[in-house]
């Protein structure tokens, strides 16, 4: 079990981030309870990835503050990195290396011994349905296989908090289902999972709570059921459309 001491896994207040003339985040607030699966929903460009990158210590916010597992993401970035795992949106593996070599290499960087990294790589290749492809160079992989390898790399060592940026994009339904099971198992073991998704059905099925993000702020937040009830809608899709169309309209 992880992080009993930190009932709140993520606490962000007033996050702002600007890239040139684009305001990616304009005062985003977020609270994620430890041990839960939390979904960030929103159209492309809403600020989901920027939020994840700030929380995972890859970006500094222009203003606002964020704490992950009790550590400030700017001042205590090193402490945050010891507790998190990240699967970015682009498959961040080395195309020249084989799947197995990627996992062993990243395992070593995560602190596993040589033997430990090899054993872990074999287990993860099996779990992510890549056992047969482990010896092939990643450049020969399909998009779905790369995605799975990237996810496997995020599970090399246990993390208190997993950041998964669109983990199931490009996966077939069977693979998506496998990823959901692994995400659920991670939460059951006491870890927190913060994931972004464009599939509302996915958020509805696996997320304990969701935040709908648009134009760099949180438009609505709650359990999928509560959001549907509050908005008087039957599905999360309708909630999402109602919220994001509103902002499109007001922005125009």
């Amino acid at each position, binding site marked *: 079990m992880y992080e009993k001491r930190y009932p709140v896994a993520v606490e962000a207040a007033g996050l702002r981030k600007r890239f040139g003339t684009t305001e990616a985040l304009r005062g985003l607030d977020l609270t994620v309870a430890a041990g839960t699966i939390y979904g960030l929903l929103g159209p492309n460009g809403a600020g989901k990835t920027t939020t994840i990158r700030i929380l995972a210590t890859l970006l500094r916010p222009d203003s606002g503050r964020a704490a992950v597992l009790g550590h400030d993401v700017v001042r205590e970035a*090193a402490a945050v990195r010891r507790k998190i795992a990240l699967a*970015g949106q682009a498959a*961040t593996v080395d195309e*020249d*290396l084989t799947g197995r070599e990627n996992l062993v290499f990243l395992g070593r*960087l*995560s602190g596993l011994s040589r033997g430990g990294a090899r054993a872990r790589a074999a287990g993860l290749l099996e779990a992510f349905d890549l056992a047969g492809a482990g010896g092939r160079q990643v450049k020969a992989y399909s998009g779905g296989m790369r995605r799975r390898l990237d996810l496997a790399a995020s599970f090399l060592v246990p993390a208190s908090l997993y950041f998964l940026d669109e983990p199931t994009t490009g996966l077939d339904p069977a693979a998506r289902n496998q990823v959901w099971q692994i995400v659920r198992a991670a939460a059951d*073991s006491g870890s927190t999972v913060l994931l972004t998704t464009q599939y509302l059905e996915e958020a509805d099925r696996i997320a304990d709570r969701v935040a709908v993000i648009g134009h760099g702020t949180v438009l609505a937040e709650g359990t999928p059921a509560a959001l549907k009830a509050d908005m008087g809608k039957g599905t999360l899709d309708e909630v999402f459309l109602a919220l994001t169309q509103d902002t499109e309209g007001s922005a125009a």
Partner: protein
Amino acid sequence: MTAIITGAARPEPPGALTATLAFGYRALLKIRHVPEQLFDVIAIPVVFTLMFTYLFGGALAGSPGRYLPFLLPGTLVMAVLLVSMYAGIGLNTDVSKGITSRFRSLPVWRPAPVAGAIAGDVARYLIAAGLVTILGLIMGYRPAGGAPGVLDGTGLLLVFALCLSCAWTALGLTLRTPQAVMSTGTVVLFPLTLASNVFVQPRTMPGWLQAFVRVNPVSHLVTAERGLLAGHPAAGQIAWVLLAAAALLAVFAPLTGYLYARRAC
């Protein structure tokens, strides 16, 4: 399948040395998996060595055998300098593919990716220098400086190439694609290596070209290498090369650090 997720404790992050070795090992794996990337570049000095020695060697120096000791230190320099471009190409690939994002999210010693990449570069330089030297030996080249001369010459070349690679890493962080880094690097390196004293002494060149060849850092490096390999090192030339290397390092290492911090964000 979900048994892969356990509540086991997370291991301690790796030390600086382990992390650097992991990055160095990755660089070696890349040489093994994509050897053509290295050999495509080494092919150029190899072809030039063969072509100039057998085609022009007699005309330039009386016989191919007498020309080779003059040419080989030059093509050796050419090989290692061309290979040094990969530092920029590799870094650009990592940043543009987003792999640096994963590295930065891991609890590893911050300079480890760079330190590991340098270790990989040294392996590439040694392969390039080794191949050209062996080719020379097969063609009948017997450096008068013997093994110590070859070792010293290779060492000086490595130092210069590593410092020069900082310029490529800065370029790699400025341009968009690995292809752009490669073509820009080639556009810079080819005039520098051709308009130098690699193939002939500048005596017979027009005055404006002689002026360029004499200030060209590659000429100084080649002269220093000729001295070392021939067993009569020229202290002034070696000092000049080391100074130029230090200048490259002083300008481009901080620039690379600055660009890396900015771009990798």
